[in-house]
């Protein structure tokens, strides 16, 4: 699946104007090459209890104003009947796509992938508020911050907790250890080990965005005999 504007232009260049194909192609590669760490996260839906401690921790740590949110926990309809009913929980937040539509469509370069960490972030001072990225994000996790007037979303606490050498606020606050954060390039990291041990899915993976948000599915009750 190839939807990226730059790749599209690059392809166009290759078939029509050979001279520019190389230049456009380079810019695509630049957004994808990561030197250093490649941060990702797991949300274990089997452990999550839907307490939303993560939601509030994120808001406090990252100064997210009321009315918008970098992170939501979406609760399913009840499964089964009282007193045996239970719920599924889905984490809605930025997937830190390796091929990020929000970055590809941004006309000013405000949306970017940090080359040192693979984190998708926004330069608030470069954002002009055109909202292309909001329309392009297939995960619907971006918003315009009512205070800074810039597009914003989860940045794995890049400028807050990570900058202080701490784990992201949501990960720290979770009473269930349902969130695992770490470097996907490090074979000894907890996240890589967990990915090897548990059944994992990625949301809308078929779009080819290469999301770095992994999920352990909570499937009990899915099959009724």
């Amino acid at each position, binding site marked *: 699946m190839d939807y990226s504007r730059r790749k599209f232009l690059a392809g166009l260049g290759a078939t029509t104007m050979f001279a520019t194909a190389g230049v456009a192609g380079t810019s695509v590669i630049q957004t994808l090459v990561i030197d250093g760490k490649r941060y990702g996260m797991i949300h274990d839906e089997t452990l999550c209890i839907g307490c939303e401690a993560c939601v509030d921790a994120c808001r406090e740590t990252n100064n997210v104003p009321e009315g918008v949110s970098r992170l939501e926990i979406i609760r399913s309809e009840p499964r089964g009947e*009282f*007193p045996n*009913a239970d*719920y599924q929980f889905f984490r809605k937040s930025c997937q830190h796509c390796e091929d990020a539509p929000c970055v590809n469509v941004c006309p000013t370069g405000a949306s970017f992938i940090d080359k040192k960490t693979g984190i998708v972030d926004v330069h608030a001072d470069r954002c002009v508020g055109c909202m292309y990225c909001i329309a392009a994000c297939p995960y619907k996790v971006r918003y315009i911050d009512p205070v800074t007037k810039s597009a914003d979303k989860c940045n794995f606490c890049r400028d807050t907790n990570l900058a202080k050498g701490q784990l992201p606020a949501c990960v720290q606050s979770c009473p269930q250890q349902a969130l695992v954060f770490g470097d996907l390039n490090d074979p000894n990291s907890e996240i890589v080990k967990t990915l090897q041990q548990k059944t994992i899915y990625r949301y809308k993976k078929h779009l080819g965005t290469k999301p770095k948000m992994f999920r352990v599915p909570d499937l009990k009750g899915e099959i009724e005999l």
Partner: protein
Amino acid sequence: MRLLQRSLIFMSLCILCLPGLAAGNKVVSERNILVPAADFEIQVENKAEMEKLIKENRRCIRCHQVERKLKKIPAVTVQGAAHGSEKFYDNCTACHGDKGKHPKQDVSVISFAAHSPTPLAQQNGQCLKCHTPVELRKAEWTHDVHYKKINCASCHKLHDAVDPIINIERKSRIKLCVDCHHSINESQGEL
């Protein structure tokens, strides 16, 4: 057997009456719709039953209205509007059952606490006589996932002036989840 019959009648009447009650009741907030102001009339069908109820409740009041100094048993009060009733003589028996051999045998009254000799299912079953699963879910989804695991009295305090869990603030609510689940995880394998 008699008790069982009574509770069955109580239960079926509850279910029949709840929608009607809810309609004629002032709703304080979205979260408070759980309990229509308790109409204890549904417990009794005739005069004889009412007389028995009064007699049973008088037996409770006789001992519990003052502090039992020797054993340091505090006086029991029903302050909350939802569960107190003058007409029904405080209606202790609606929840606690008849006196039976209490206090010689503790198990003969239903008591509400984590360490109570009354089994968890029976404690919570008492609440379910009036509060329907549908209403419970509407008031708070976590009822669904805790009903079989912890007793209602872990969160609800009916003898206090205000039930501390009702309309709890978001922050305190999350803290409650975090603290409780954290301690469950800590103690895993030790229970």
